[in-house]
């Protein structure tokens, strides 16, 4: 196996494992084809510049998509719970130390996580109200100084759910080829 191909194969670790499993071999094949066609001396360098840029941009995109896809978390309750509890503990700590009110800290720190997990559970069982709960959870977590937290949750719900049609919609029926 050529050095370039070995290097490219190693760099595929930048993509999520699911993406690598589905398309890793095809991507290596395409890279091999490019090197075969355009490689040799400066040509190889040129291919690497193009492919390197492509790799950075597309790997970031795939990582973000994997992170924001609710499906990526719904089957991993332990990981999702740990992440949510960590984030919400930080929010709770911040709120409690700033406001001095225990109840206020709990309400703003943990209530969104409870709503989010409930929404995910309902969504898994295809119950109505999952979309509402998920949206309330993400919006409810939002106060002025938690912009990043809110944006991440809102994106997870809105982009990962509504845009892909996986929440609140029936799956699309396969269409026969004409």
């Amino acid at each position, binding site marked *: 196996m050529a050095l370039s191909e070995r290097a490219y194969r190693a760099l595929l670790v930048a993509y999520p494992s699911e*993406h690598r499993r589905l398309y890793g071999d095809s991507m*290596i*094949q395409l890279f091999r*084809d*490019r090197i075969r066609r355009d490689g040799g001396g400066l040509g190889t360098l040129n291919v690497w510049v193009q492919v390197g840029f*492509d790799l950075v941009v*597309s790997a970031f995109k795939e990582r973000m998509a994997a992170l924001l896809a609710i499906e990526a978390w719904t089957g991993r309750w332990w990981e999702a719970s740990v992440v949510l509890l960590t984030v919400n503990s930080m929010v709770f700590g911040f709120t409690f130390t700033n406001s001095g009110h225990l109840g206020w800290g709990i309400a703003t720190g943990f209530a969104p996580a409870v709503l989010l997990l409930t929404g995910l559970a309902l969504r898994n069982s295809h119950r109505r109200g999952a979309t509402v709960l998920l949206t309330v959870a993400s919006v409810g977590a939002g106060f002025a100084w938690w912009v990043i937290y809110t944006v991440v949750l809102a994106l997870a719900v809105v982009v990962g759910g509504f845009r*892909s049609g996986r929440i609140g919609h029936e799956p*699309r029926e396969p269409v026969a*080829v004409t």
Partner: protein
Amino acid sequence: MNPENIVDLLPLPVAQLHILLALADGEKHGYAIMSEVEVMTGGSVTMGPGTLYGTVKRMLNSRLLEETDERPDPVLDDQRRRYYRLTGFGARVLDAEVARMEQLAGTAERKRTVGIRRLGLEGR
């Protein structure tokens, strides 16, 4: 398929439009798609493996494409390659996107003509 779903997908991202056009005349594997896009764009667009297969994945999820086991020429072809082709829905989305672009191009042409007349640039 609800026709409203076609409208939801428009305008198509450029990479998706290129892939739909590349597959309009038959199934192709990744390298053939990339080569076809290069030809269509006069060499100005070369899709990298990450962009191509990331886009293909999204298009498969949207049911614009499907993977096929058919081979144009099984004797000459590498069986390990994965081939893709348009679905009926993908063909309709491509049709709607091209119609949208034609309408836009028509508007642009009318605006351009009006602009040239207004600025007195005719014949220059």
